[in-house]
């Protein structure tokens, strides 16, 4: 009966062929480490955010007079409302953790290099969408931090040439962030996840065209590829288990870690809280914004700091395989960059003092400096490595995979 049904479907839709091509027969490098789990985890978080979000939307009211109270209603009156909300608010932070690790892995192992440029760029698009979504979602609880975060970020669009002031009013639908702004942010916050889901499909089509990269950094011969299912479905499931343990520790025991205390005060357009700061995942970029004394310059620097990753396939000019693994200078640069991001994050969370301004400027210069020296460093390093001879391990690998 099942066989008959499947064969009936197969005559009309390539079900079996699709499953075989993308799953049971999809060749995957056998040496993938756990760093390769984070793409799957990102997909899982996306689904969880969409599901919890839709159920939250059944109780939430996108009206500036009702929004704050409807959150309290969800937290106190709705059955398991607290769980839905904490899953969703913790999930937002988890999404960024997973995506940042996913990006760091790509940078470390050089997975952005030819032929995976488009895969990397669709990922960059997904990052921008994720940032937009989380920013709009953060306004919905209509607390003080929500309000002033939205006020400051929409104000950044004043940097638009000539029509800056009009653009800001247009985005808000009012002269300051208000009821109109809240309602449209809710509409867009509901829409964007489905655009993300579409972009994820494109990301996966690109992935399955160029195949997964692997820690060795070279394309493996057939003998070193194994089917995705069952080998990597099981590996992903194990990773998921570990992830869920950590995730639920936060959801159940420390759910307010990612909710600013000031956000439990209803939005007040007449009073800015004494210290406002964005969510942790925006802190490094916020620090760069603050480090530039000029409004337009700051906005440009911040935009560039996010978008500059797209240029990686061209800025990294080395042809040595294996990303940072076989490239000592690149590895050093990678760790300097990661440390610098943490430093920027620290600065972004501090109040403005002369010391924090200087520290922020130095860290911002290092951030862009890393990208600036990369094109030259990668070429010099490549010459040096070729002259010195590749490590025996790489040579052996290249020989073995020639087949």
């Amino acid at each position, binding site marked *: 009966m099942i066989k008959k049904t499947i064969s009936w479907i197969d005559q009309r839709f390539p079900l079996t062929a699709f499953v075989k091509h993308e799953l049971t027969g999809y060749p995957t490098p056998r040496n993938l480490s756990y760093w390769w789990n984070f793409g799957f985890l990102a997909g899982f978080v996306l689904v969880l955010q969409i599901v919890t979000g839709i159920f939250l939307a059944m109780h939430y009211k996108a009206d500036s007079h009702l929004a704050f109270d409807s959150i309290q209603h969800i937290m106190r009156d709705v059955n398991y409302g607290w769980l839905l909300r904490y899953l969703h608010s913790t999930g937002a932070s988890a999404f960024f953790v997973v995506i940042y690790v996913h990006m760091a892995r790509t940078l470390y192992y050089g997975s952005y290099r030819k032929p995976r440029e488009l895969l990397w760029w669709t990922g960059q698009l997904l990052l921008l969408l994720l940032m937009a979504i989380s920013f709009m979602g953060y306004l919905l609880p209509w607390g003080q931090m929500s309000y002033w975060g939205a006020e*400051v970020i929409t*104000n*950044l669009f004043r940097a638009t040439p000539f029509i800056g002031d009009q653009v800001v009013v247009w985005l808000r639908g*009012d002269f300051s962030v208000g009821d109109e702004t809240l309602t449209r942010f809710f509409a867009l916050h509901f829409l964007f996840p489905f655009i993300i889901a579409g972009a994820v499909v494109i990301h996966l089509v690109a992935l399955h065209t160029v195949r997964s990269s692997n820690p060795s950094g070279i394309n493996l011969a057939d003998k070193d590829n194994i089917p995705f299912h069952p080998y990597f479905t099981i590996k992903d499931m194990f990773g998921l288990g570990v992830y869920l343990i950590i995730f639920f520790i936060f959801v159940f025991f420390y759910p307010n870690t990612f909710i600013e205390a000031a956000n439990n005060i209803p939005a007040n*357009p007449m009073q*800015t*809280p004494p210290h*406002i700061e964005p969510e942790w995942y925006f802190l490094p970029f916020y620090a760069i914004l603050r480090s530039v004394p000029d409004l337009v310059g700051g906005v440009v620097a911040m935009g560039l700091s996010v978008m500059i990753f797209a240029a990686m396939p061209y800025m990294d000019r080395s042809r040595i395989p294996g990303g940072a693994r076989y490239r000592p200078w690149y590895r050093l640069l990678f760790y300097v960059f990661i440390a610098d991001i943490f430093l920027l994050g620290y600065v972004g969370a501090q109040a403005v003092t002369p010391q924090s301004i200087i520290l922020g400027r130095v860290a911002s210069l290092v951030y862009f400096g890393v990208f600036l020296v990369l094109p030259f460093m990668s070429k010099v390093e490549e010459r040096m490595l070729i002259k010195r001879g590749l490590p025996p391990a790489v040579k052996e690998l290249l020989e073995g995979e020639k087949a």
Partner: protein
Amino acid sequence: MSGSDTIDNPDRRNFLGTITSVAGATGAAAACWPFVSSMNPSADVLAKATTEVDISSIPPGGEHTVAWQGKPVFIVHRTPEQIKAMEAKETTIDPESDSKRVLKPEWLVVVGICTHLGCVPNRDPEGGWLCPCHGSMYDASGRVVRGPAPRNLEVPVYHFVSDTKILIGKKV
């Protein structure tokens, strides 16, 4: 596109094709307009455009904050000493004389939104304002004396309806 060699006037066909594309694109762009325009402030939001304030109860040295277009507006009753100090003072970031920022020197009316990124500055006991977000400082005339704010606090359009009443959002 085989058989294009049999067209007796290919230029005419290209021309028609181009015009059709241009007209179609213009139409598509025009169709976007209602959607874009719907996101601009609606009529009821625009109706909040003016605010009338009774200023008789503000004592010298006192400040009163009112909402105008959803934005805070600071109304300050300045003391003679403050007026004197401000008239003598000059600023460098956005130079503007004090007399140009007031209709009557004892009344300062400014939009209470930092010109950097839109936070509401807090009143400084000495008569100016200090922005809690990024540390911009304004004097008792609302002029910026320390960045990152690029401009002085905005002076809204307003006029005195009577000696004790002002209307913000409208010139005489």
